[in-house]
């Protein structure tokens, strides 16, 4: 935040959200969705660094069989903290809260979200939750895995005193997520500009909307579950502890009733970003707009009906297993609809192979593998074999890290000029993306093989298997660890050139890529009130009205062409909006 705050000013000082007011308090108490978005982005990226360090510890421990530099307990803590940090602090808030906060109101041509104070409150809840995770890290430790399964999490004999702080942290983060979701739903319902009907919204907003529905409906269930688990551990209330008449499988049902929809909280906004990246950077109208829009909502709805597929080996009845398996397959339909529409958009498009596009293409490649391997796990007969092996680890990293996070990084590059007003080094950006892509696949492709050969997940040491197995596992684990180092180099390079661009980057034009949605019609970085001039709401994927402006080094809208394509009533005047006191 301070890095952006102190950036050298351009010769002509234009009022924007970064220099509108100065001082730490003007950031800490800001109600501006853009500053809150930037604070979220920085916080999420710092957590990503922390979670990534734990991942490197885990990978380094596993590089060779035998006890490495971590003890068993330390290893359990490393993977638990890696998972918990990455899920609760990074991926869930990464797109909606960080990028969504910055972009969504601007895409709507609105001045802010519906409830700016609630928005700031959500951010501080996030910070508060994150503090609890840090407390969990330092005061005790957490070795339950990110899922907090009972009986690990209620085993008070183990010295893991970090369980309750971590649960409390996740509980608070949940409320941050609920309030963000509420805010976004109301914003999209009530603050769309005149002329922007539901089906003229950018697809990113559809994705954010579907995500917000899940946040509002599923997260409270996690909230009460974690609360009951805290009470179970602290007082023994007899809900999840079998020794007190409780049922540990009930915990799994409750946990996955939230956490399966939560994986769509993670992937849906990513898919929304990809819809924008693919259309803008291939300069072609998105193919099948309504299909992509409805598939987001369909995924959100199906997402509520499939939680039982995490529990095929927990002693669920065979009938339930079969039902959950069948519904699980149905999720692949809307996902595939999206993939085909993106491919069709690329077809005969005028594709710019710049960094955001490379991330979008990486997403499509990785998500295809991640999605298709999900079918193996949704199939009862194969899941029983693959359950709790590295196949599962590889699968969910392909969708959560390789898809959701890659989309987030791609979106960060796409909107970086808008957020910071600076252009990053394009060639380094491409190099960074390639390193991340190669590193990612080197890390996780071998894990599919490991898993199908029987290597269980969460093992600290694999030297006690049969000799030929140990040899096989060692080879793949080594490749996997090498891949993680390549990925780390890619991410550090990315962090390096992005930070460098803040100080030395070329000034960004309002519309560097040729985007048509409203955020490209305000200055980069946007002014405090977002729009100096009332933006024109048109077909946000009709790029034919844009022309290249050599002087600006960016695109601008050709007014004559736009008027020909305009929707009736789309230039309605919002400048008469009065400033009113809030309640």
């Amino acid at each position, binding site marked *: 935040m301070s890095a952006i705050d102190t950036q050298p000013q351009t010769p002509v000082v234009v009022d924007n959200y970064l220099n509108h007011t100065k001082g730490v308090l003007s950031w800490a108490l800001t109600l501006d969705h853009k500053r809150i978005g930037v604070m979220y982005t920085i916080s999420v990226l710092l957590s990503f660094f922390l979670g990534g360090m734990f991942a490197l510890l885990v990978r380094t421990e596993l590089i060779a069989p035998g006890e490495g530099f971590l003890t068993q307990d330390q290893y359990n803590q490393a993977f638990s903290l890696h998972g918990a940090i990455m899920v609760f602090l990074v991926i869930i808030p990464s797109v909606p809260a960080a990028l969504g906060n910055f972009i969504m109101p601007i895409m709507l041509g609105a001045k802010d979200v519906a409830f700016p104070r609630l928005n700031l409150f959500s951010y501080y809840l996030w910070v508060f939750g994150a503090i609890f995770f840090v407390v969990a890290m330092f005061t005790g430790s957490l070795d339950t895995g990110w899922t907090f399964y009972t009986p690990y999490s209620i085993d008070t004999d183990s010295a893991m005193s970090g369980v309750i702080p971590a649960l409390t942290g996740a509980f608070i983060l949940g409320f941050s997520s609920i309030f963000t979701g*509420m805010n976004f739903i109301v914003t999209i319902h009530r603050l769309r500009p005149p002329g922007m009907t539901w089906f003229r919204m950018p697809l990113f907003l559809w994705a954010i909307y579907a995500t917000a529905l899940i946040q509002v409906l599923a997260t409270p269930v996690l909230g009460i579950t974690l609360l009951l688990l805290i009470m179970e551990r602290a007082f023994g209330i007899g809900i999840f502890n079998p020794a007190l008449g409780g049922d540990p499988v009930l915990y799994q049902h409750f946990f996955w009733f939230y956490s399966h929809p939560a994986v769509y909280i993670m992937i849906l906004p990513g898919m929304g970003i990809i819809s924008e990246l693919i259309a803008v950077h291939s300069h072609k109208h998105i193919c099948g707009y309504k299909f992509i829009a409805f598939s987001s909502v369909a995924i959100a709805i199906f997402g509520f009906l499939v939680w039982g597929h995490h529990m095929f080996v927990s002693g669920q009845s065979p009938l339930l297993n079969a039902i959950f398996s069948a519904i699980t397959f149905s999720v692949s339909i809307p996902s595939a609809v999206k993939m085909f529409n993106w491919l069709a958009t690329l077809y005969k498009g005028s594709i710019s192979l710049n960094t955001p596009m490379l991330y979008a293409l990486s997403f499509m490649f990785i998500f295809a593998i991640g999605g298709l391997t999900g079918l193996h796990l949704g199939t009862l007969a194969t899941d029983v074999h693959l359950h709790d092996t590295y196949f599962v680890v590889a699968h969910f990293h392909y969708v959560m890290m390789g898809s959701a996070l890659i989309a987030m990084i791609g979106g960060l590059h796409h909107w970086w000029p808008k957020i910071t007003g600076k252009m990053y080094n394009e060639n380094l950006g491409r190099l960074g993306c390639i390193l991340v892509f190669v590193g990612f696949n080197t890390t996780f492709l071998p894990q599919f093989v490991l898993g199908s050969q029987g290597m269980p997940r969460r093992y600290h040491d694999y030297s006690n298997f049969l000799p030929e197995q140990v040899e096989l596992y060692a080879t793949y684990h080594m490749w996997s660890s090498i891949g993680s180092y390549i990925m780390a180099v890619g991410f550090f390079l990315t962090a390096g050139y992005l930070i460098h661009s803040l100080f030395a980057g070329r000034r960004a034009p309002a519309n560097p890529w040729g985007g048509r949605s409203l955020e490209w019609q305000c200055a980069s970085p946007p002014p405090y009130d977002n729009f100096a001039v009332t933006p024109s709401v048109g077909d946000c994927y009709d790029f034919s009205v844009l022309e290249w402006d050599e002087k600006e080094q960016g695109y601008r809208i050709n007014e004559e062409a736009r008027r020909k394509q305009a929707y009736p009533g789309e230039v309605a005047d919002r400048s008469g909006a009065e400033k009113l006191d809030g*309640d």
Partner: protein
Amino acid sequence: MFALAALPAGRQRNAFVNESEQFIAGRFAMWLLLLSLGMLFGASLIAFLVIRLQLADHWPGELISLPRGLWFSAIIMLFSSATIHAALHAARCNRKRMLVAGLAVTFVLGCLFLAMQVQCWLVALAELRNVWLELGNNRLAATGFYIFSGVHGLHVVGGLIPMAVVTLRAARNQYNAQHYGGVQYITMYWHFLDGVWIVLFATLLIGM
């Protein structure tokens, strides 16, 4: 959230074109919050019922009885729903004294409800001491009442704080027939808490 509410008035940031738009949005957000909290209470209800049904014959129902005070607290809660609705009606009709009175009475009833619940906790605790050893491993029979009333009670506390703010604002004459958002939102929330407690209480009555 209340620290944020204390931000200087100059730091307002409002994206709505007029106050009625903002009111509609606020009401919509309150519905979403209630939906969300409905999921939370619904899940706790299901958790209770699942364990209750699993324990079926082992359930030591005859050992435990619900404190009688719960009937009083339920009546208080029902009555407070009526008083807050009277306050809302008064706000819509611009009857300011009635508004302040309605809110103040509801606030007092809310505190009374909490006091009654705490008293029931103590009564139940005293009774539990006698049967603790006989309960065996059917812990939920003893803790179910505490879980329900505890989670609900926290939400009542979370309602009383903004209700105090709304009451003070009403006393300072900040609401009128065109501008009564705060009264509307707190009334919706309070009715919800009333309904939830009736359902939870009924579940305890039948389940125990």
